[in-house]
C-alpha cells in the first residue's frame, strides 16, 4: 500500500476542510428565504447548472473578467487558479494511469513523485512528467508575479493593492510556499532517485551537487504535506475561502437566488466569494477624488467577514454601483451594503399620517407625470417636460405639482425600509388614483424605486425613455442642432436600471453627441448621491469637480444629464460648461 505518515497533515486538512465547508454552506443555504430555496431545488437539474459550470470555468479558473479589465492581474489569478487546477487534474490522471484504477486515496496523486519509484515507467510517464513540470513552472511564475505585485503594484496598472491583515499575510505566505515546497520535494526525490522532467530533474541534479539530499528529502515531503494541510485548515478563515465559495455562489446566482433587503446567508456567501482582487478600489470615486481608502467593497466585505465594526463603511458609499459593475465575481455589492444599514425608523399609525390620499381622477389622463422632489429645485426640467407633453399633444396629469410625496427611496437607501414602505404605499395610492396608463418621472431615483419596490400595474418610464418613445413614434417634431453634447448617465438610471440606449438615441437625434469612455454603465457619479451620509459637502464637491473635469475634457458645449440631483450637483461646480437635463435639450431643439 502506498502510504507514509507524512500524508497525514494533508489528509486531515483536506477532510476537515470539506466537512467544514459542507456544514457552513448548509447553514447558509438553510437561512435563505423559502422562495430562494425553492429556486435552488428547481435550478439544480436544469440547464442553469451547465451554464454555471461554464461560468465557473471561465471565471473561477480562467478569470476571464479580470483578464479583460487587467491582463497582467488576470494572468496572475489564472496561473494560480487554473494552474493549480491543471496540476490536480493531470496529477490525478497520471496517478490513474500508473495505478490503472480511478480509486486511489486523494493524497496519492498529490504525492505521486514520492510514491512512484522513478525507474518504473508506465505509459506516457515521460510526457506526464514533462506536463507536470510545465504546470509547476507556470505556477511558480504566477507566484513570482504575485510577489512582485505585493511589493510593486503599479506594474499591474493598479493604483494600489489590497491591504492585508497579519493573518491573511500568514495564509498568503503558506499558499506561496506550497508550490516552491512541492518543487523542492520533487526535485529532492528526483535528485536521489531520478525521474521528473526538465524542471524538477534538472533542479534535483543541481541540488545533489551540494546538498545531502537523502537526509533532506523526507523532510521536504513532510513540509509540502504540512503546508497543504495547514492551508486547508486556515482557508475557511482567510480570503481563500473565496475559492470554494465563488463556485457555490455562481451556482446559486444562476439558479436565481437573490440578494434581498436583509443581510442573510446569501449575503454571507457573497461576502465570502470576494477574492479581494481590488478592482473595486480603482473604480471607486471616493478613492480617486477624496482619497478615502477604507470603504471600498474589498475592505467593507472583509470587515463584514471578520466581524469588525463596519458602521462607518456601511454608510460611506455613494451606492453609485461602479464597483458592482466592475466586480469580476458579480457580487451584489450595493444590495449587500444597503442590507447592513440599520433601520432607524419605528412605524406607528402616526407615521406619515399627514399624507392624505388623492381623490380618484374622474377623467384620467393617459400619462401621469411625477417630477420628483428634487425636480422642483430645477424648474427648467419640469417646464421642459411640460413643453414636450404639449408639443406631443399628450394628455397628462401632473401628480406632484403642488403637494408631492417623496418616492421613499431616500429613506430606503438609508436602510429605513419600514418608513420607506409607508411612504411607498401612500404614494402608490396617490399615483394609482390618477388612473393613468403610463407613469413618467424625471427623477431616476424615483424611477428605480417605482420599478423595483412599488407594485404599480402601469407602465413606468423615465423621461429619457418616454422622450425616446415619442421621437420614435414621430410625435415630437425634431430639429437636430450643432450642439456638442456629452451624456452623464445618472447612476440610478444607467447602472441602476439599465437605461442606456434611450438617452443616447435621443441625444444623437437632437445634438452632436460626443461618445466618451464614461458612456453607458461606465458613467461617473456626480457626487451628490443621497446614499452617502459620511462625506461632507466639500468632499461631494470634489467628486463633482472631478466628474465635471472628466466630461469637460471632451470639450462639449453642454454636459447633459437626466437627473435633477445630478444637474444640481454638477451645475454647482461646472462654471464654464453648462449642465442641462436631456429634457431641456429636447424642449429647446
Amino acid at each position: 500500500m502506498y502510504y507514509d505518515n507524512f500524508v497525514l497533515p494533508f489528509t486531515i486538512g483536506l477532510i476537515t476542510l470539506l466537512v467544514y465547508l459542507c456544514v457552513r454552506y448548509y447553514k447558509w443555504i438553510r437561512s435563505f428565504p423559502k422562495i430562494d430555496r425553492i429556486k435552488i431545488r428547481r435550478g439544480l437539474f436544469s440547464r442553469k447548472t451547465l451554464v454555471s459550470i461554464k461560468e465557473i470555468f471561465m471565471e473561477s479558473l480562467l478569470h476571464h473578467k479580470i483578464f479583460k479589465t487587467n491582463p497582467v492581474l488576470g494572468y496572475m489569478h489564472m496561473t494560480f487558479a487554473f494552474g493549480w487546477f491543471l496540476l490536480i487534474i493531470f496529477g490525478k490522471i497520471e496517478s490513474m494511469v500508473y495505478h490503472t484504477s480511478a480509486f486511489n486515496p486523494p493524497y496519492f496523486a498529490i504525492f505521486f513523485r514520492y510514491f512512484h519509484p522513478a525507474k518504473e515507467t508506465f505509459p506516457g510517464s515521460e510526457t506526464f512528467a514533462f506536463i507536470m513540470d510545465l504546470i509547476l513552472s507556470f505556477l511558480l511564475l504566477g507566484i513570482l508575479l504575485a510577489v512582485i505585485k505585493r511589493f510593486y503594484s503599479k506594474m499591474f496598472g493598479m493604483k494600489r493593492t489590497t491591504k492585508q491583515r497579519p493573518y491573511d499575510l500568514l495564509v498568503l505566505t503558506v499558499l506561496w510556499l506550497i508550490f516552491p515546497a512541492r518543487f523542492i520535494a520533487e526535485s529532492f526525490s528526483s535528485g536521489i532517485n531520478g525521474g521528473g522532467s526538465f524542471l524538477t530533474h534538472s533542479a534535483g541534479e543541481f541540488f545533489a551537487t551540494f546538498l545531502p539530499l537523502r537526509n533532506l528529502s523526507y523532510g521536504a515531503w513532510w513540509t509540502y504535506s504540512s503546508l497543504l494541510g495547514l492551508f486547508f485548515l486556515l482557508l475557511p478563515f482567510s480570503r481563500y475561502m473565496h475559492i470554494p465559495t465563488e463556485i457555490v455562489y455562481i451556482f446559486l446566482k444562476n439558479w436565481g437566488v437573490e440578494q434581498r433587503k436583509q443581510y442573510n446567508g446569501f449575503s454571507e456567501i457573497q461576502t465570502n466569494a470576494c477574492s479581494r482582487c481590488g478592482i473595486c478600489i480603482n473604480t471607486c470615486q471616493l478613492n480617486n477624488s477624496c482619497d478615502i481608502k477604507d470603504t471600498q467593497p474589498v475592505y467593507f466585505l472583509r470587515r463584514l467577514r471578520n466581524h469588525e465594526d463596519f458602521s462607518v463603511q456601511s454608510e460611506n458609499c455613494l451606492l453609485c454601483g461602479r464597483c458592482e459593475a466592475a466586480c469580476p465575481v458579480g457580487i451584489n455589492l450595493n444590495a449587500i451594503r444597503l442590507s447592513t444599514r440599520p433601520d432607524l425608523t419605528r412605524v406607528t399609525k402616526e407615521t406619515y399620517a399627514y399624507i392624505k390620499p388623492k381623490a380618484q381622477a374622474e377623467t384620467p389622463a393617459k400619462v401621469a407625470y411625477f417630477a420628483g422632489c428634487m425636480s422642483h429645485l430645477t424648474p427648467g426640467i419640469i417646464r421642459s417636460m411640460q413643453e414636450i407633453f404639449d408639443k406631443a399633444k399628450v394628455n397628462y396629469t401632473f401628480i406632484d405639482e403642488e403637494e408631492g410625496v417623496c418616492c421613499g427611496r431616500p429613506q430606503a437607501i438609508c436602510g429605513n425600509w419600514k418608513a420607506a414602505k409607508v411612504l411607498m404605499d401612500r404614494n402608490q395610492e396617490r399615483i394609482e388614483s390618477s388612473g393613468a396608463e403610463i407613469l413618467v418621472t424625471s427623477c431616476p431615483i424615483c424611477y428605480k424605486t417605482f420599478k423595483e419596490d412599488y407594485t404599480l400595474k402601469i407602465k413606468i418610464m423615465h423621461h429619457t425613455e418616454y422622450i425616446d418613445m415619442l421621437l420614435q413614434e414621430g410625435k415630437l417634431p425634431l430639429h437636430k442642432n450643432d450642439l456638442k453634447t456629452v451624456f452623464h448617465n445618472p447612476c440610478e438610471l444607467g447602472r441602476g436600471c439599465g437605461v442606456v440606449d434611450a438617452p443616447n438615441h435621443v441625444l444623437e437625434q437632437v445634438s452632436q453627441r460626443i461618445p466618451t469612455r464614461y458612456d453607458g454603465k461606465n458613467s461617473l457619479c456626480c457626487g451628490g448621491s443621497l446614499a452617502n451620509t459620511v462625506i461632507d459637502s466639500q468632499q461631494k464637491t470634489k467628486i463633482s469637480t472631478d466628474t465635471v473635469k472628466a466630461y469637460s475634457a471632451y470639450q462639449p458645449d453642454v454636459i447633459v444629464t437626466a437627473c435633477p440631483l445630478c444637474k444640481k450637483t454638477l451645475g454647482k461646480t461646472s462654471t464654464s460648461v453648462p449642465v442641462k437635463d436631456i429634457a431641456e435639450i429636447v424642449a429647446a431643439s
Partner: protein
Amino acid sequence: MNFWGFNISETRSINYDTNDKDMLIHVLQEVPSCKLCIECGGCTAGCTAGRLTSFNIRKLQMFMKRGENKEIREELHKCMLCGKCILVCPRGVDTRKMILSMMKYIKNNQK
C-alpha cells in the same frame, strides 16, 4: 374637571440651563456642519414634508441646539429624507444627515 377647574400651567420657555444637550453633542459630533446654520429657513421653504404638514426642519435643528428634545421626538418622523434641503442650504449644512443622526440618537437612547 378637577376641584380647582384648572391646572398650574407648565412653562413654554426654553430653559437652556437645565435642558439636556446630550443629543446635541452626539449630532454635532456626527454632523459638525450643523454649527454653520444661519437659520435662513431655506431648507424649510422647499421641504417636501413641510408642504403637507407642520414639519419645520430649521426649527427642528434649533430645538436640538437648545436641548428641547421633546419637540424633536414629536416631529422627527415626519421627515421623508428626500434630501431637497441639502441642495438648498447656503452654508453646506448636511441637513439630511442631521436628521439621520437624530434618528440614530433616539433609537439608541430609547427609554
